[in-house]
């Protein structure tokens, strides 16, 4: 695919997406288009649907898609199982990575990598090649090699968990990476290290959707586009300066805006 074609083609096209959790609507007509190589930030107050959106893209079954469409690299994304989405190049960095006692990080990562490689009809990597690859990627995120033999995220600090997410991303080499509140629970040093890892993975056709409540992550991972999500819809889009504006003004303008609408409806 040439650079010229990339400009024309979307990697992700979300069209009027409605989704609910246990019957309550969360996403209410979300539209978003992402081109290869772009970094989009999605900001918004708590409860606006940011995490729901990230998880719907990854295929979490707790969320029901009620209507709308999501096209990913020409595929109907909503028709794919979570593992198929991953194999097609979607990666979700979890806000709360799950710990799995009894499975070593190395075993987990290699199983994932080989599952993805099998899907792509590539040969599986053996233990030696895997170790070489993973060591290289661990340097990228400044992770201690000892964590490879530990159980997945078990007893990891908040920073270690998030770094582990970025390590997985680096190993699985996705086309679209979605970071769900990757900054939450991190101190500034951990945040910087995680962001550096992400930045090292930027480039080429890889696109990012960075979901965050706070602007500070975007000081490190500078986005091409910033969107504000409120009550399940994108209500404003702009460039990186929008993030700074939000930092100054907060989200209260959204609430008062909605409050006004509601008052009007009532009268």
């Amino acid at each position, binding site marked *: 695919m040439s650079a010229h074609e990339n400009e024309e083609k979307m990697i992700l096209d979300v069209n009027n997406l409605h989704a609910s959790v246990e019957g309550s609507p969360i996403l209410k007509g979300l539209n978003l288009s992402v081109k290869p190589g772009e970094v989009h930030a999605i900001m918004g107050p708590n409860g606006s649907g940011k995490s729901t959106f990230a998880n719907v893209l990854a295929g979490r079954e707790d969320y029901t898609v009620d209507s709308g469409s999501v096209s990913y690299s020409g595929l109907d994304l909503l028709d794919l199982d979570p593992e198929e989405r*991953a194999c097609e190049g979607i990666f979700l960095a979890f806000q709360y990575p799950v710990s799995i006692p*009894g499975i070593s990080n190395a075993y987990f990562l290699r*199983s994932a990598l080989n*599952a993805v490689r099998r899907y792509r009809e590539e040969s599986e990597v053996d233990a030696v090649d895997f170790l070489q690859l993973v060591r290289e990627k661990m340097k990228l995120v400044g992770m201690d090699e000892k964590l490879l033999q530990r159980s997945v995220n078990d007893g990891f600090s908040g920073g270690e968990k998030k770094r582990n997410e970025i390590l997985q991303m680096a190993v699985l080499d996705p086309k679209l990476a979605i970071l769900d509140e990757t900054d939450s629970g991190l101190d500034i040093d951990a945040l910087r290290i995680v962001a550096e890892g992400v930045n090292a993975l930027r480039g080429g056709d890889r696109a990012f959707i960075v979901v965050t409540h706070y602007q500070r992550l975007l000081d490190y991972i500078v986005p091409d586009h910033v969107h504000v999500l409120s009550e399940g819809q994108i209500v404003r889009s702009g460039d990186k300066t929008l993030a700074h504006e939000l930092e100054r003004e907060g989200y209260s303008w959204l609430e008062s805006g909605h409050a006004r609408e509601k008052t009007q409806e009532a009268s």
Partner: protein
Amino acid sequence: MSTETVDPWHAMLSQQVADSAGAHSSLDQRRQSASELFQQSGFPTRKHEEWRYTPLKSVAQGEYSALLPADGALPGDDELATTSDIRIVLINGRFRDDLSDLTALPDEVSIRGLAGMLAENPDSVIESIDRLIPSEDHPFQNLADVFLCDGLVIDAQGETDARIHIVHAQDGSAVSGSSHVSGLVRLSGGAKIEILEEFRSRGTTLANIRWGMEIGSGCEFSRQRVVRPGCDVLYHGTRVQVEGKAIFRDLIAGSGARLVRNEIHAILAGPEGHVDLLGGYVSNGDEIVDHHTVIEHAVEDCTSREIYRGVLGGGSRGAFTGMIHVHQDAQRTDAEQSNDAILLSRSAEMNTRPRLEIYADDVKCTHGATVGELDDESLFYLRSRGVGLEEARRMLVRAFTAEVFKDLENEALKEQFIEQLQEAMPAAGESGS
């Protein structure tokens, strides 16, 4: 209890008592009284509290009442990755000298067939049996008393470090029936013994195996038991007395047996002793796995740990009954018990009964039990990384059971145990959910 279900057993018992009478007076007496107890009580029904989750109806019916023939072949199975060079084979309850290899046995350790010892020196053997396995009204103990004829006597004295592999094989390929094995273990003088006890079976068989053990001061006894797929009915009972600073460790792994009842009664009889009981299993179909443990903290400063984990599919049923009895003098007891189960289908069932009886005041006792399904969050996490649903389920089952085996030093054996359990796991579609 209805008499008609016990009938075939009654006939067998009466005949056995008559046939063996006159061999040795105290043995005769023990046989006689066990027979009488069994004639009265028979096999308990599910109304009996201690047997509520172990249905013995099929055992009570005639199929198992005959004794398995003295000769039999060793059912072929892949060999376990044992590091022991001492191998003991018992087929249909008989110690098989011809199939056992004792050449590497250190001087400090002796292993002998019980039948031979009963012939040679009955007084001392019977005295040991009476001491280490006191008579009690218990269906399988009664049967073991009545049919007492062979088994093993393992003695170790002084500093030694022996690893022993014991294969209990039941060959019911020609006729169905039962076998009854009694084993004694006596360790003293700081001896360390490790036993890998393996159960194999072919055909319709009941293996009734019991052990009486005394682990002397400062001694260490470690046992790994593995129930290989294809076993039918297995009763396994252990009564162990653990002296000061001694350690008793047990681990049982298994899958693919129709009914397993595992009983351990451990008595911490000297200060600073430790008991470690671990179990991991996968069950399917209409299999039944029942772990029944009693740990008695009789004296101060002892520790115990229990971890049992089961993965149940199909219509299988699991049970765990764990009594921790802390006697009045057992101050500074530290006892830990956990029992966790994953149900893979709606018709699988787990019953867990922790029982604590604490009469000392300075005691740390923790117990926990969980019964649940595979964790959705973890499944989604694995799937979101590209791992397919079926492989993700297997990985989680592996992780769940691996916890039981994590202290096992023999990595190859550990892998075999985990592998056996993983292979026994039903696929999502066939788990009957």
